[in-house]
């Protein structure tokens, strides 16, 4: 029994990491209205920003958060200029290819600049263990889970209860109409994209702290998990995306429990497929569509 409980906890912890990455992803898609393949690299750069910050000023979590947020938000501006701004009125596959290109660009530049090897990120958060025997959580895990819950709650309020949030969502749905309402479309979506990327950066930092290591190529699988989780959540709905990440983590770990870790992604994708067959647009309730 303890064993299954501990596996469930493992699933929840990993799911929270996915959720964290998916939140930023959802913000980006929800504001820009275009799908991105650069989010993994944004996450990776956030991790590196915090890594160098910790080296410079010591292991200060708050400063790390600020640094990774700012660095990734800045990258967000870059991504916006390259991949989105020009292509708002173009079919979406064009900006999609641009994001694939940008991801390749950032990953390889990072590899050249930061070096291709793994870097350690140890003891930023003390390895304290709460619980008994196999059933329990470490401090990092608690921090991650708390961040996910509070972020999805706050962002949900922000996007659904404030005029700013409505503005950001409006921009992604109809840029012409948004302009007619007096919304500065470029600036707003730039800002929204940067916020989403900044959140991705923070996720990157926590990811690196959680696994105690970072490397320039970590973005690939991170981005894919963020993407899958966000799709599960209907892409633009933040709490649903977080739930999507959580489910994915739990399903994967359950799958590993009954078979082998090599099958992790098989379980993930089959679960995704099953959900999409039943609900073609993910968990989120879809609004505003009719034939």
């Amino acid at each position, binding site marked *: 029994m303890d064993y299954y409980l501990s596996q469930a906890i493992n699933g929840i912890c990993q799911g929270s990491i996915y959720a964290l990455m998916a939140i930023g992803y959802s913000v980006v898609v929800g504001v820009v*209205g275009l799908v991105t393949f650069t989010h993994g690299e944004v996450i990776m750069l956030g991790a590196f920003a915090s890594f160098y910050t910790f080296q410079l000023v010591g292991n200060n979590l708050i400063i790390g958060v600020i640094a990774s947020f700012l660095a990734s938000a800045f990258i967000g501006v870059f991504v916006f200029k390259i991949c989105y701004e020009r292509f708002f009125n173009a079919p979406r596959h064009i900006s999609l290819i641009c994001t694939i290109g940008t991801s390749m660009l950032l990953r390889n530049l990072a590899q050249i600049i930061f070096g291709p090897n793994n870097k350690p990120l140890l003891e930023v958060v003390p390895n304290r263990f709460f619980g008994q025997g196999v059933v329990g959580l470490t401090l990092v895990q608690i921090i991650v889970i708390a961040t996910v819950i509070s972020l999805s709650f706050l962002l949900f309020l922000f996007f659904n209860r404030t005029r700013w949030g409505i503005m950001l969502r409006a921009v992604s749905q109809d840029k012409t109409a948004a302009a007619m309402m007096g919304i500065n479309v470029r600036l707003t979506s730039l800002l929204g994209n940067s916020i989403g990327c900044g959140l991705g950066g923070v996720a990157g930092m926590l990811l690196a702290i959680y696994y105690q290591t970072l490397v320039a190529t970590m973005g690939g699988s991170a981005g894919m998990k963020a993407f899958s989780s966000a799709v599960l959540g209907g892409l633009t709905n933040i709490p649903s995306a977080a739930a999507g990440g959580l489910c994915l983590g739990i399903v994967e770990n359950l799958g590993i429990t009954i078979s082998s870790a090599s099958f992790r992604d098989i379980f993930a994708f089959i679960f995704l497929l099953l959900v999409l067959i039943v609900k073609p647009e993910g968990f989120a309730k879809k609004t505003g569509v009719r034939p």
Partner: protein
Amino acid sequence: MTIPPSISALFQKKGMRISLGILGIALLALIPQLNLKSYYMGVLCRILLYTILAGSLNVINGYSGQFNIGHAGFFGIGAYTSAILSLQLKMPFWIALPISGLLAMIVGLIVALPTLRLKGIYLAIVTLGASEIIRLIALNWMSLTGGPNGLRGIPAPVLFGLKFSRSQQYYYIFLVLSLVFYFMTRRIIQSRIGRAWISIREDETAARSLGVETMRFKAANFMYGAFWAGIAGGAFSPYFKFISSDMFSLDEGFNILSMVIIGGQGTLAGPIVGAIIVNFLTEFLRPISQYRLVVYAILIIAMMWLRPQGLVGVSKSVLAERRFGRSRRVHRR
């Protein structure tokens, strides 16, 4: 890229078109007689291979407007099928090849059936997942696929005692296959079936209201694309003689996708141009070693900036605004 009217007029005459086509094919067939180095022949073979891969992806993404980004999976199915058939059952290549295509087609159907209701990015992620699942199965099914060790020693095709082993010889197999692909696809695109695919791309609701069985045609479209990816894979493994699951990764899928889009989605010539350009870039940039992918990425982005419609002019509809927010109801009135 604009063709002078006098030349394009030449192409309009049917007789002229046919004779130019025959001339072109003859020239292509003569290339191996130039005694090019096997390296150049290797690059040519690769370009021809990708012509089929990009072309078949284009049938799916460019003509029916579905969004497949996991084409590498079908490629892998074909490659493993022909490898396994020829290694374990000693089946001749010429029988194994069509079976590779058919199997990829069946898998295409299995992927397509439950996902026909999905659109856009939701379909994309399912194809991506399917591609990964296929790769992971190849990686884990030790007894059949050799697991992580891959399959080696795949025998070269033999026809009337002639062995197609070196790239100079294998070139002809790839050439014939890509020509067959091109002409078949051309005819189908111009037919009632092609029209139905295009109508689905343009407006699925309207197509249904006109009696187009969108589910059937989308499935058929997916299967057709998968079939040719399988054929490409089936021809690939005896050429390469060794295959392993990491050859059919997601990056390979993205690679094929970028050929289609760089060349120009929704045109027959686009994927050909895309395959040439991308493979050429890969080779051309190799000397700058660690900066290679940086420059490659910049070039891809630059191409999207300068010619978002792809290098070959695209039918306008592919450029139609089809944004994520799908605001069908708020079109012009």
